[in-house]
């Protein structure tokens, strides 16, 4: 899988609105192929909105979103997905009227090279014996695994993950962390929104600090520990 061409997500002066209120005020950042990059910031800083704006799941957006040079800002959500960006939402978005299997098979394949169902079930063994139960009968952790697992099948190479650790037990968080590391070694490009700094520091190559809808700082992964005080200032910890 590593011989696949490199993806590169470049976001420039991205602005987005909910109705009349402007939420993103010129987000600018890059995610290079094969990198894991996090967006850190307080509640309401615009992290989730950034992911949604990339996917086109927001009423109005302006600026530039390029994937390997191709402009996406005017592309509807299904088009963004078909160009190889997959989204795992904060609320996980497991469909209650679909079984686990149906949930897993739902996202259409957009490119070759996606993982097989067996491979995904190897990553998340818990799901294997639950395949025929309704999606929302799963525990929170299992739902998160399902939400993550189902976008690996599609062949998308850029994954947007919105707070995959939110509300989960430490043992599950570690499992998710290992999975993301595995995905990284498989060459996936990952943009991660996190509030859990400890989790983010362990796996990300770089961090962007988001405040009031723009990037206010960039911290290389190894420096996170040393710049923890500055970061705590940003996050209000």
């Amino acid at each position: 899988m590593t011989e696949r061409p490199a993806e590169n997500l470049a976001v420039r002066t991205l602005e987005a609105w909910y109705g009349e209120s402007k939420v993103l005020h010129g987000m600018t950042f890059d995610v290079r192929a094969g990198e894991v990059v996090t967006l850190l910031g307080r509640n309401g800083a615009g992290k989730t909105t950034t992911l949604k704006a990339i996917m086109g799941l927001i009423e109005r957006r302006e600026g530039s979103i390029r994937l390997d040079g191709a402009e996406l800002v005017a592309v509807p959500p299904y088009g963004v997905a078909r160009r190889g960006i997959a989204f795992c939402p904060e609320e996980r978005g497991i469909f209650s009227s679909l079984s686990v299997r149906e949930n897993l098979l739902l996202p259409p394949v957009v490119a070759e090279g996606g993982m097989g169902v067996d491979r995904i079930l190897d990553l998340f063994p818990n799901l294997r014996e639950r395949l025929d139960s309704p999606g929302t009968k799963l525990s929170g952790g299992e739902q998160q695994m399902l939400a993550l697992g189902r976008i690996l099948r599609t062949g998308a190479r850029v994954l947007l993950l919105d707070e995959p650790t939110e509300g989960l037990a430490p043992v599950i968080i570690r499992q998710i962390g290992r999975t993301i590391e595995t995905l990284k070694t498989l060459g996936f490009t990952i943009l991660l929104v996190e509030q859990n700094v400890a989790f983010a520091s362990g796996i990300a190559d770089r961090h962007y600090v988001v405040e009031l809808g723009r990037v206010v700082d960039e911290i290389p992964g190894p420096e996170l520990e040393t710049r923890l005080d500055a970061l705590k200032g940003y996050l209000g910890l």
Partner: protein
Amino acid sequence: MTMILGVPAAVLFGQLLLGLINGAFYAMLSLGLAVIFGMMNIVNFAHGAQYMLGAMTAWLLLTYLGIGYWWALLLVPLMVGASGLLLERFVLRRLYRLDHLYGMLLTFGLALVLQGLLTNAFGSSGQPYSIPAELMGGRNLGFMFLPNYRAWVIAASLLVCLTTWYVIERTRLGAYLRAATENPMLVQAFGIRVPRMIMLTYGAGVGLAALAGVLAAPVYQVGPTMGADLIIVVFAVVVIGGMGSIMGSIVTGFLVGLIEGLTKAFYPELSSTVVFVVMAVVLMVRPAGLFGSKPEQAQNHRQVLDGASTSPRTQTIQFLVMAALFAAAPLVVYPGFMMKAMLFALFACAFNLIAGYGKLVSFGHAMFLGTAGYVSGHAAKSWGLTPELAVLAGTAAAALLGLASGWLAIRRSGIYFAMVTLAFAQMIYFVALQAPFTGGEDGLQAIPRGHLFGLIDLSRPANLYGFVLAIFLGGFYLIMRVVGSPFGLVLRGISDHETRAQSLGLETERFKLVAFTLSAALSGLAGATKAITSQIATLVDVHWSMSGEVLLMTFLGGVGTLFGPVVGAFVVVAMQNYLAALGQWVIVLHGTIFVLCVLIFRRGIVGEASLLLRRWSARPAAAAHPAAALTPHRQPAGH
């Protein structure tokens, strides 16, 4: 001859078969409604009209082009389905972010347009459509005679229903549909073109209705009105079953048909109302419906409207101006027109009290108008009551009916409330059609006007006008005061955000019931006075089209505005009076106005006018902030 519980076996089985046939159509139509509602959150009121269009198209193909039944079975669903695709693409798509009620209103308008146009072209009487040669005849089963065509209808509809169920519940396409029903945005984000899928779903749902129409053509008379009454029963079926489940729609459809058949065999008088009785019972014991998993969530953030509030003093001045104008009007306007318009205005204001301020849009308000009319007419004519007592009796009857139907109806909200009230009104219509004292098709004629308080002779035009004027102004003033009172504020609070109101400790159900009963009583006041004034009480006033008219008046004038319903009522009554020669075109016009109101004119005449006025008076301020002037005022959208 074998008898079962006092009924000949052949009759019983015959009625059961008929019930199964009706049930087949209920199932196919409620299935389509459920699929469309699931995907689009639109209660497709035009479903009955599209079923009718299917039958009519089959008849037209046969009559004018010689294309027979089997080809029609294939072609008609495609043709009518294609019209559904266009409708979704160019009209319905604009409604998705609005309250669900707008979809119901718009498709109601479309149903009127379709029905009116086809009545214009082909008359309202039914046309026969012969059974295809292959399915002529029948077989004797020993206990009954089974006509081949009827067996075919049941088999075909079962096949259609089960195929639809299979596609939705067991295939990949169905998984997309179910997922998009839950979370369309996320499904889009997976790379599925949801808008196109919605369009195709609507087309398929409409095609299904048309297919039902073709199947129905040889069973029932083919005519422009064949869908209207059917769709009301189907709404009741939907309320009974709950729209959440596909299999639930199918089972409920057939079940209701069988219950109707049984009733026809054992107690025919009840057969046309039994569906609504079942609905009432289901609402009492299981409000979400037999197969509904949970009651619909209150749509808290989607606003139907936002009425401009004026100060009480301005309102009082406006009220006095209106009173003076109406008092002087007979000098220039035909008094008969004024009286009719004022009474409809009162009706519309009463409707607006619950629809505009309580956001409970009833599709059955005619039941209060009509019932009160019958009761006061009967009281004046048969009991010899003086007019004020007759009007009082009518008003009381409407209030009681409001209390009883409201007690059941407020268990649901939004579109379900609309369907429940529509179904109850249809039940009242059938009662009025059959009850001994209503005069059936003829209605009550020559109701005496009598002497007010035994003194004032209402047969004198000036007295009569004064009587109607006093009742209108009194009713209007009461509504004005109620809206401005703490009770009115609570009502608006509940309609804005019911759960929030509950969390403040308000017993919201009680407020809604009181408001509904008050609205019913005032509608009754209008209906009772109308019966005394016009000296007749007929089925027109209890028919569903009257419920549609009061909706039209209110939405055209401006729902949630104080004077909007008055303006709307005058416009609609004027249209009826002066365009009466156009016949069915008036229906088409009504329907078109509905569609336009929903698409471009949601605030109504008064709402749009006051908005313009406010903008105009705010102009200097806007000039100081050019950015604000450039931003268009948007309808608040639901998030």
